[in-house]
Every structure is written in structure tokens, then in C-alpha cells.
């Protein structure tokens, strides 16, 4: 059995190693869930919530009973969620296509590269399909995360929409 002193020490150690310590670190961690807001439910956004209601009314029709209305709301919620994920992914790609070096520079700065502008000068800017392919590889992690959100919304929609 674990002794009381050991438990006390474990608790003290755990308290000392939980989460970011600096003000900047805490501020950054606090914004984690808000980075693309896709983890938040659609209904937490009033504007989207209103769109869900409008779409649900359209799906259910005028003389729908409570059960149909509820199902329609679930379909509408999944549909608006899906649209939100696709917009986020589209924004990510179109922003990067408009200014791909911005992200490269940021990643170099993150890696504490000695002289990012010099490194950028040595690597010529990719153009055309290479530019797009470079973006896909730079944003692979983000795109994968968004794909998971899209899959989740699609599953929810098709589950609700089944007879």
C-alpha cells in the first residue's frame, strides 16, 4: 500500500507539472480549443444555431410532428457542421495558396532557424502544382484533423438520415 507521505509527495509533484507555467504559455493553451473552433458544437455559435433552425424547419416541412422536427434538427446540425468544416479547410488552403511563404517562414521561425530569409532565398519559391503540393505537405496534420471532423459530421448526418 502506498504510504501517506508518498501520496503527498506525488500530489505535490503532480501540481508542479501540470500545464504551461508562463503567462504566454497559459494564454496559448487557453486558445487551443478556439484555433479553428471545429471541436465546439454548432449550437454554441448563435449565428450557426439560427441556420440550423432554419434548415431544420425546411427539412421537416410545415406540418411535422415533434419527433420529425427533432430528427430534422439533428440532420440540419450535422449538415451545418459539415459545411463549417469544409469552409475551414477551404480557408486553410486558399490562405496558404495566396501566401505560402508566410507559413514556411513561420515554421522556420518556430524551429529557431538562424536566418530564415537566407534559407528562403536558397530555396526558390515553388510555383504552380509544386506550390499546391508543398502546401498539402506543410498542412498535412491540419488537413488530417479537419478530415476527422468532416468524417464525424458525415457519420452523424447519415445516421440521422437513415430510415
Amino acid at each position, binding site marked *: 500500500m502506498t504510504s501517506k507521505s508518498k501520496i503527498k509527495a506525488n500530489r505535490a509533484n503532480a501540481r508542479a507539472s501540470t500545464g504551461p507555467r508562463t503567462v504566454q504559455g497559459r494564454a496559448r493553451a487557453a486558445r487551443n480549443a478556439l484555433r479553428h473552433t471545429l471541436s465546439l458544437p454548432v449550437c454554441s455559435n448563435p449565428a450557426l444555431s439560427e441556420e440550423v433552425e432554419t434548415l431544420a424547419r425546411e*427539412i421537416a416541412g410545415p406540418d411535422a410532428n415533434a419527433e420529425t422536427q427533432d430528427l430534422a434538427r439533428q440532420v440540419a446540425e450535422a449538415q451545418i457542421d459539415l459545411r463549417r468544416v*469544409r469552409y475551414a479547410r477551404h480557408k486553410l488552403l486558399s490562405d496558404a495558396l495566396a501566401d505560402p511563404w508566410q507559413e514556411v517562414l513561420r515554421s522556420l521561425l518556430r524551429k529557431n532557424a538562424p536566418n530564415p530569409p537566407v534559407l528562403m532565398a536558397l530555396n526558390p519559391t515553388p510555383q504552380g*502544382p*509544386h506550390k*499546391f*503540393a508543398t502546401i498539402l505537405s506543410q498542412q498535412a496534420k491540419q488537413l488530417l484533423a479537419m478530415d476527422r471532423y468532416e468524417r464525424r459530421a458525415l457519420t452523424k448526418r447519415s445516421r440521422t438520415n437513415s430510415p
Partner: protein
Amino acid sequence: MSFVSRKSKNKTKVGTTSVSGQAQRLAQFGPPLLLEGEDAAACDEFLARIRAAVDPVDIIDDMFIADVVSLEWEVLRWRRLKLNLIRTRGLKALESFLAKKLDCDLYYDLYSEHFAADLTKILQDNLPQDEADPAQTLACRCAQAEADAVDKVNEILRSIRRNMGFEGYALDMNQILHRAQAHKAEELVQEYVRGEPDAVTLVHELLSGAGVSMDALVADELQNRDYLDCIERIDRLTTIAENRRNASLREIDRRRVVLGQALRRGVQEIEDAEFKVIQTTPSKRKDAA
């Protein structure tokens, strides 16, 4: 990358009735998500053709149609990207192959003009203004391999390098020749892409002379790990979009089956109510008989 609408002769007839109602319904699914260089008109046309073919009965049908269109557009995007990527990498490989092949006296005539032009520019940029005019003559004579001109140019280049230090490392006769070869190779590739007969013949000659083909150059490129990763990533994205598009198509099919069954039931009920079973009564004539 761009998507241009192709005018097909066998187009599905696009319905024009209740356009505002349809537009209102489709607006709920948001505008098409196009990237830089994609043709919005082609996407709209595609959506209109799909809607005309499917003929949606309610908003759920519209939802799946919007899905199919958006996912098919994505499939086309990824396929085109992959094709363009392979094509440009192949042409880049051809360009370096040609540049290497041109590094031979046999083909000097092909790039001697580029060499003279590059040399003239270097001499004009680095010689005093009053000597700039003879620079062109000197470069042309050097390009024609006149010994005294070659010596003089070499001397000038040496002095320029001495003055410029590290930055002047490229001002060497061989470097200038290589640049001219690379320039000519780039030009040849562009002409080859445009299908200019002379360039096509020369490229084919050089390729067959070396015992390689365009496909072999492209395959060599695939050995590059980064490039292969890129192609695989695009293939994955294509597969995901294709699977989701097919799932939406299956949903439309399933809904049509359900709709068909419901319609059949409805028709049957209406027919049952409309027509009563006529009781067979014994015929008088028969009785009489």
C-alpha cells in the same frame, strides 16, 4: 491550375423552372468552395447538369446533390493536381536531361546565340561605358571560338572575378556556357510542349540516342521520396473524396428506392379507393338457357 468548362454536345437539358426556389434552397449549402484559378462558371454548370439529371424532390435530395458536386469537384481538383505535378516534374527532368546532352560540341550551334547574348550582358555590365559597344562584337567573336577573342574574354572575366570576390564565382567561361545550355534546354522543352516539329524531332532524337524515354524520366523522378510522398498524399485525398461522393450517390439511390416504394403504395391506395370490386352476378341469359 485552372478548370475550364468544356462545351459538350451531349449535355443534359438544364431545367429553368423555379430557379429562384432552387437557388434559395441551394444557398443554404453555401457557395461552391473554389480555389485560386478554378472556374466558377464550370462549377455552376456542373451543378445545374447534375440537378437536371437527378431532379431533386426535396431539400434532402438537394443536400446530397450539393455534396456530390462539391466532392466530385474535389476529385477533379486532386486528379488534375497529380497530373500537373507529374507532367511538370517530367518536363523538369527532360530539361536537365537536355541540358546535360547539350554539353557537347555537336550541339554548340544550338545554344551559341544564348552564350553570346549572356556574355554580351556580362561584359556590358562590367566594362566601362565607352567599351560597352565593342562588348557585343567581342562576345560574338568569342562565341565563334576565335582564339584571340576567347583569350581576351577570359582575361576580362578573370579581372572581374578578382574585383568581385565571392560574388564573381559564376563569371567563368564554363559557367556561362552551362547557363546558356540550361537556357536552351528550357527553351527546347517549351517548344516541345507546344509541339513545334523541330523541337519534337530533336528531343526524340536525343532521348532515343541515350536509350531513354519520357516515361523513364518520369519514373526516375518517382524515386525521389518527397515527390512520391506528395503523389501518395494526393492519391489519399482523391480516394477519400471519391468514397464520400459514392456514399452520397448511394444515399440518393436509397432515397429513390424508398420514394419509389412510397409512390407505389400511394398509387395502390388511390387505385383501391377509386375502383370497387364488381360483384359477379349470374347472367339472366345463362339462367334462361
